[in-house]
């Protein structure tokens, strides 16, 4: 310990909250348990939703816009389909789009951030300008425009959301790479004659990965919301059921004015809970990696 800040000696004795292990944070805190639990539940539904659902979510019946009953736990839609089954099946779209889009965003953002931070010069200037462009453009309108131009499908949704949210990650990665580049252990590796590939692989990436990960988890939350928004606006995949499309259909068919709360509230609640769960997990990750990032002791 070299005394560099007043609180060093005091804080070192206390032990930062963020020094707790990932496991401790995820399972030992209320936030963690909620997040992991809810996310786990929805992931399960994403895989097994169609098996667990009591009815075929697409099956229509004459029992239109009916309130909850023993037969239909959450009532029926304007086409007489079971709301509960739709809810369970709809989890898949949110989870799949959320994670896939976030993955694209992470890969794209990391690659750009890494290249521009490490190589500097013209690479940096061009990529940085590109990043700024994407950051400045309002994402939702951009998504709407892109989705409108292309035929609606899950893939399109994933690509569109991924393409519009990578810039934030890129920025953060670039900043981190810039600091890492000047660190003594990188300088040492360079002094040994290590190639750029080696340095990036062994020194830069491992020290940036936790940051990328924590950031990506939060992007998942954003992606899920974006999907819901786009589906709600009618730009989602019409062949699939998602919570967003449920809301779209509900509003289109006048469910609010019909006071069909069982149709309007559950999808919205699910979206909220999933996003909340993911966000909480993301924040916990950030807490965990923060002291490590700030300084290494």
């Amino acid at each position, binding site marked *: 310990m070299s005394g560099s*800040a*007043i*609180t060093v*000696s*005091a804080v070192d*004795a206390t032990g930062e909250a963020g020094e707790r292990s990932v496991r401790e944070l995820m399972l030992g805190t209320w936030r963690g348990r909620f997040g992991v639990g809810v996310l786990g539940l929805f992931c399960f539904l994403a895989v097994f939703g169609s098996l667990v659902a009591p009815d075929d979510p697409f099956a229509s019946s004459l029992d239109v816009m009916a309130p909850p009953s023993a037969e239909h736990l959450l009532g029926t839609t304007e086409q007489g389909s079971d709301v509960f089954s739709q809810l369970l099946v709809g989890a898949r779209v949110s989870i799949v789009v959320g994670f896939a889009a976030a993955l694209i965003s992470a890969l794209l953002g990391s690659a750009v951030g890494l290249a521009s931070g490490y190589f500097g010069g013209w690479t940096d200037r061009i990529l940085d300008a590109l990043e700024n462009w994407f950051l400045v453009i309002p994402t939702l309108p951009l998504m709407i425009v892109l989705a409108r131009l292309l035929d609606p499908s899950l893939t399109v949704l994933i690509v569109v959301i991924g393409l519009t949210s990578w810039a934030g990650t890129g920025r953060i990665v670039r900043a981190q790479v810039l600091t890492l580049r000047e660190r003594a252990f990188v300088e040492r590796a360079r002094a040994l004659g290590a190639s750029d590939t080696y340095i990036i692989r062994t020194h830069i990436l491992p020290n940036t990965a936790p940051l990328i990960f924590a950031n990506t988890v939060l992007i998942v939350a954003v992606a899920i919301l974006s999907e819901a928004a786009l589906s709600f606006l009618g730009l989602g995949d019409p062949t699939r059921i998602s919570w967003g499309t449920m809301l779209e259909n509900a509003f289109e068919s006048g469910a609010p004015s019909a006071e069909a709360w069982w149709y309007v509230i559950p999808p919205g609640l699910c979206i909220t809970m999933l996003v909340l769960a993911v966000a909480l997990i993301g924040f916990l990750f950030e807490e965990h990696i923060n002291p490590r990032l700030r300084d290494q002791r």
Partner: protein
Amino acid sequence: MSALLEVADLRVEVRGQRIVDGVDLTLERGEALGLAGESGCGKTTTALALMKLLPGGLTQSGAITLRPPGAEEPINVGRRTEAGMQLVRWRHISLVFQGAMNSLDPVKRVEPQISEAIHLHEAKLRPRDVRERVADLLKTVGLTPALGSRYPHQLSGGQRQRVMIALALACNPSLVIADEPTTALDVVMQAQVLKLLERLREDLGLALILISHDLGVLAETCDRIAVMYAGRIVETGPVRSVFDDPQHPYTKRLLDSLPVIGGARGVAVPIPGAPPDPGNPPEGCSFRPRCPYEAERCLAGPELREVRPGQAAACHFAPWSEWPEPGAVPAEREALP
């Protein structure tokens, strides 16, 4: 005349770990006391505790009494509330923080940062008088008053350090605590700052608590010195006595391990091991695991006691008139009370 500062049994704990473990100090008016020790020994925490500036989560206990000249009643720092402390801080006792050079607000010019401190304690002063005070302060620390209109980043490290000292003097305190004021400075700048502190003490009658891990710095500036190890004071006494005739094995080994110009060349024998973990202190004497003379009675904590006139050490085998080979403790010492 009663002492300016009296500290009795100061303890600071966090989560059950003792960072400061029963510290007693006295400081007379105009005296300079050096607080020596390595990082983690608790010296910075002690300084913060004196001003009740400890971060949340740390609890302090112990009696701290301040008797500034001109105050009718002694100030019982230990019992003051936060609101009460705000009247005491800076007015009677101020602090030059560690890494002070980076403690200045980067988006404010120098002059307002100093005048802000003055304003907090003497709100009734006219702005013109305050500005004049600031200019005087800058001159006192050897800077031209024109520097007051600059931003911190436009000043050099040495200049920023002087600004921090000026800031500490803003309300005419009788005691200034300087925590590692020269650590980040070059040897020439360090000499300049130490000279400045010496002059300030002479001109203003300032009492000083100087905290440093650099024994040379303390030798040059202080009248008395207290050596801290693992949250306790292990030796204290006049600078001359402690350096010429140390009475605690830690002090002795520390002095021996320092290279000195004009002294012996070659690497000194290092002290093995490392300072103890505050969460797991050794039984009895905290230096015992690293002490070359440790014996069974060291399992019971030695108290700080006077072993030479004016010099106290926390070691069962003090006073030491000579230092035997490591491991060999003369038999008759075992019989000491």
